[in-house]
């Protein structure tokens, strides 16, 4: 049969289009698009959730409850036996908290003989008052016998209660702030004696087991030391290595080996660098544990690949015509690179370095292994002294059980994120403004 014969029946009309499932396909197209939007929404939602969680928990950390007191530096309490001229320890070990408690009890009209009430009054004041008043007296012993107006820190429990972080509905025996203390807080707040003031201690103090006196000053100094070491070591070494690989390296096995190594080091887990630091710098070279020098060295090794990769990209972006022109005018290769290529690549190198530094600033794991999880209350004066770093301080506070530490931790995270934001924004501005497009 060669002729196809139309046997009748319903003839397909030209005006009706053959169904090729176009509707279904368009629906599928819409769905697919939707998935993409949902995926992006999920990503942004979690970013928002993370930032919201940190900020809502942490913004209160920048204010700390303080109490205004007229403290009488009574001689019979500080130096009852009048020995301070002969025994220098008298002023160091005097019962300073009692001064503050007495002052507050007088202000609240509490009978100084009622021991139970006086103890509750004392509970309102942070133990940090001891060092605060002691430092005042040691700085100026002539204030003994006078009355001074000072702001002292309230205890961490009072601070949490005032910020509404403690559930006050629960039974009195099951919370740390008693009804009597709450009553006093209300009275003092109405009188303007109790007040939330900007928390400078958060930025200046060192480690402490009490939330109200814990600060990240030591950690910030430690982090700054480490950033300085990373900058001083990683930038020159990274730039030198990149120049060699981009401008001088012959195509040989050694060059290949170096390239493979750099690419792999960029992907090695950071904790492995911590093990390296522990084994080489501390165990083999006997550098001190917990020192910012060791931390800086470890972070340098970790940051080098990032800086090298960014620098190489910046060098590659300088057009070959610049090199040809310099070489054509009789410059040597070294002169070409150092007088012409490097200055033109400098903004790109700087951008990469800032990003590498930001990465190093947020790194925690390797620092834990070289012993930077230490309780350091004093400022390090040299990079060889024990110190902590900002992210490590966050880790240590995150492990504390008290509610007030959650607030501190989030506050520290806000500070860390601000540092990182400033660095990254600087890098972006540099890239937009200074970097030349060829």
């Amino acid at each position, binding site marked *: 049969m060669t002729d196809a014969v139309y046997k009748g029946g319903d003839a397909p009309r030209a005006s009706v289009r053959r169904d090729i499932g176009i509707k279904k396909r368009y629906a*599928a197209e819409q769905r697919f698009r939707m998935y993409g939007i949902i995926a992006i929404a999920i990503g*942004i939602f979690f970013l928002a959730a993370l930032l919201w969680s940190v900020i809502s928990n942490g913004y209160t950390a920048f204010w700390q409850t303080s109490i205004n007191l007229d403290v009488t530096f009574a001689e019979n309490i500080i130096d009852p036996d009048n020995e301070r001229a002969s025994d220098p320890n008298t002023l160091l070990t005097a019962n300073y908290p009692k001064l503050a408690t007495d002052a507050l009890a007088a202000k609240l009209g509490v009978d100084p003989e009622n021991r139970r009430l006086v103890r509750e009054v004392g509970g309102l004041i942070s133990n940090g008052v001891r060092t605060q008043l002691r430092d005042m007296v040691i700085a100026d012993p002539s204030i003994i016998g006078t009355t001074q107006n000072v702001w002292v820190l309230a205890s961490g429990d009072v601070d949490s209660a005032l910020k509404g972080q403690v559930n006050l509905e629960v039974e009195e025996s099951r919370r740390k702030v008693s009804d009597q203390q709450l009553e006093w807080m209300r009275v003092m707040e109405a009188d303007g004696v109790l007040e939330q003031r900007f928390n400078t201690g958060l930025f200046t103090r060192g480690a402490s087991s009490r939330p109200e006196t814990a600060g990240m000053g030591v950690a910030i100094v430690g982090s700054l030391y480490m950033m300085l070491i990373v900058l001083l070591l990683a930038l020159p070494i990274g730039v030198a290595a990149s120049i060699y690989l981009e401008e001088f390296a012959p195509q040989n096995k050694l060059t290949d080996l170096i390239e493979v190594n750099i690419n792999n080091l960029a992907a090695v887990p950071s*904790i492995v660098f911590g093990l390296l630091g522990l084994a080489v710098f501390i165990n083999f070279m006997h550098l001190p544990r917990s020192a910012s020098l060791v931390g800086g060295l470890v972070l340098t090794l970790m940051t080098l690949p990032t800086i090298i990769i960014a620098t190489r990209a910046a060098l590659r972006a300088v057009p070959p015509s610049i090199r040809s022109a310099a070489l054509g005018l009789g410059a040597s290769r*070294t002169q070409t690179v150092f007088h012409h290529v490097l200055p033109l690549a400098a903004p790109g190198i700087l951008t990469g370095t800032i990003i590498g530094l930001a990465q190093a600033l947020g790194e925690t794991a390797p620092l834990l292994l070289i012993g930077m999880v230490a309780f350091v209350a004093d400022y390090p004066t040299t990079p060889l002294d024990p110190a902590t770093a900002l992210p490590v301080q*966050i880790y240590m506070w995150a492990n504390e059980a008290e509610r007030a530490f959650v607030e501190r931790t989030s506050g520290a995270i806000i500070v860390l994120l601000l540092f990182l934001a400033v660095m990254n924004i600087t890098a972006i501005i540099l890239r937009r403004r200074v970097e030349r497009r060829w």
Partner: protein
Amino acid sequence: MAWGLLLTIIVFIGVVGYVLGSARAKKQIASSAEKPHSRAHYHGWWVFLLAVLPAVFFMAAWSAGSYAYVDRAISERMPEQTADSAIASRSLALGMVRNLAAGMRRLETDPAIAEVPESFEELRPVLAERGVALASDTQDYMIPIAAELNAMQDNAAWIGTVIAILLSLGGAVLGLRSVRPRGRARNNVERIITLGLLAASTIAILTTVGIVFSMLFETIHFFRSVSLSNFFFGTVWDPRFAAAGAEAQEGQFGLIPLLAGTIYIAFVAMLFAVPVGLMAAIYMAEYASKRVRSVVKPLLEVLAGIPTIVYGFFALVTVGPFLRDMSAAIAGGPGFIQAQSVLTAGLVMGIMLIPFVSSLSDDIITAVPRAMRDGSLGLGATRSETIKRVILPAALPGIVGALLLTASRAIGETMIVVLAAGVAANLTLNPFEAMTTITVKIVNQLTGDLEFTSPQTLVAFALGMTLFVLTLGMNVFALYIVRKYREQYE
């Protein structure tokens, strides 16, 4: 003499050499009819390098060598270690001597001390007054040895200093004498610079070698006291920080529960991050307008810039409690999800990985040639069909490479799991329970007081080695795939 001062002197000699050298070259160039080869300051630099480099290298070698020499000499003077020695081990005793020597050094410059006391009883309070703490079981016989140690070190330092300065002066003189107009000073200087650049780039190799050797060394140490099968095939992790004297208790160092936890958590993280990241990348590469892209891409990249400790804290105080409370609300009783669980850690790690997946895949999808897209669209395929049938298959090897890189990051991630996964080494399939990972255990074993001889500490290096080999294998494989794929379109 302190090394810092010596270095300053050497650099000073170098600077003087630079000034004299360039002045001499300038004079010669001005007076001679010959065409000079190098400009005057290159001659100066060459003198500087000759004066500084050999001396500095000598200094480094001398200080390392003399340290080793003095160490050995002192070690020979120590009494033989016997069973009833007061100090448990020889290295401990050596450490005490070193500590003592460092303390006695402070007394040398002290005008108040005419003679160093000979017994430890007398010496201790004197040193304590100057802020030097000594081990309480330091022995009397150590004091003369410590004094001798100091004397030997002084001698070595003194000889080294003289030789270094002579070397530096000699180099400067040699350099100055070699200045002549046709001298190839620039080539010499540039050769040194190139060598310096090469040295800088070999640091990458040195780091890798350092990682491998340091871990290999300690790992071998570890396997001297724990059998291979205990580590690789053991299913129980119980290292037992044994108290002194309780040697009968040997810990269990089973890798399997840790490895299982690591892989499980990484798997959950990838399960979350891959669809989200990949779809986000596809949308941004193929659908999003330039304006949307310029807003969304940086926003997602912010996720990559947030330190992992912040994610860990987020998991600890927000995600974990939220999941626990939610499961409690569903179950109507105690929740079936623990606050620290595989799910919590995996979910939060997944959030962290989204930007890695999306930006790596974005690059790969954009690298697929325009012609393939246009061909498919021209044949009447919709955009999603083009993506599914043409672009993704073309980009697949690259995407697989990207996912491998992401997975290796998930395996090596530490801070999130330290805070969110728990420390109990369970072997379970229930994602709602806590498991632990290799990285958590490395941190656990190495924080706090530690001695470098116990298997409890050394196991961290064996774990680190495992982690390193694991991630290295994945990275090498991933880079291989990515590189092979790139060659197709170039």
